[in-house]
């Protein structure tokens, strides 16, 4: 599990505008520099925030993916999906 890498990746979409752009246009290529497992890559590219939440990725940081329209996410579908994760917790 590379939760710290995923947290970092989410934060870089805020801080690094070139990376943000790359994540918006070619996420598969953009995530190559991160050390992620296949499962993590799949969940990320599918915008599966419930799976990422269960892996322990920080919810607040995942919000940047919705805010910047990354991996098919927007505020509406992020909200629907994360709410289905149900219980409290997630993040570190």
């Amino acid at each position, binding site marked *: 599990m590379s939760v710290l890498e995923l947290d970092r990746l989410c934060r870089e979409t805020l801080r690094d505008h070139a990376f943000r752009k790359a994540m918006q246009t070619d996420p598969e290529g953009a995530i190559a520099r991160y050390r992620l497992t296949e499962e993590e890559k799949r969940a990320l590219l599918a915008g599966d925030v419930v799976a990422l939440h269960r892996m322990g990725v920080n919810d607040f*940081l995942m919000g940047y993916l919705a805010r910047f329209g990354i991996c098919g996410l927007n505020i509406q579908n992020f909200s629907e999906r994360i709410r289905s994760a149900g219980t409290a917790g997630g993040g570190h």
Partner: protein
Amino acid sequence: MDCRVTPLTRPRGNDDIKSSRSRELHLAEIVAAFGLPHTPYFPSKVEEEGPSSPTGIMFGKARDALAAARPDVIVIFDTDHYNTFFFDNFPILAIGIDEGFRGPNDEPRGGMPIYDVPSMPRLAEAIRDEGVRAGYDIATLRDFGCDHSVMVPLHFVNPGMQWPVIPFFISGHVPPLPPAQRCFDLGRQIRRTLEAYPDKLRVAIIGTGSFSLEVFGPRIRPGFTDGVPDPDWVHEVCRYIAAGDTAGLIAAATEDRMHAAGNVGGELLNWIAMLAFTDGRKPDFLDKQMENGHAYAGWRL
């Protein structure tokens, strides 16, 4: 555990004694304390809706009260939102010690100016040095920026960043949280340093954060980026604050209770550190905002 019965407690309405003591001894004195929100889109909201909008009015009240207290410096208790710190280096307590700092460093939506805020490194050093010697492990931050959680309240109450600001960071989002009593005691320790500081400074204190708020987590409202999972807790926290019952608030604010109130519920700890300066006085104003699970409060001390 009654936090109000302490050597630091002063009788109410005894301002003359307090100020004559600090005047004669040329010591710093605490002149005001505030609890404020830091919702990232409030600057753009008030820009759109004007100063007579509800948010504009509530921040305006705090701004006017702060100006009336004529501060020389502000100490703000805050929880960073993974911008100044990250999980690779994540202190529970930290203080910014430098000539100044810049922010916000996290592009809050709607945009707000990037400010250069002056600070008071010698005073910040004294807070750290005496704090560490008293048993508080306070990390040092130099050459740093702050995110919206420091900058939004300052944007409203410190126009033009005219007063220097010392940011003090308390980890309030992810477990393990420092205990509420520890944060209150930390506030008392900082107060001891300030009130013995050999400089005629008028010091204002701000604690910023929400009581019940979930941001981008499972308990947000449908179609929104946030929600208030525990409105009852907001009422309860405000009852304690309105009554000046800090000891009651500390007893109620367990780690489980704060996490249950939302994934930023531990920001209450910043208020609790601030309350160490209020001697259990009732606030001059307390405006509860259920929509955001937070409040605005002020004390002239």
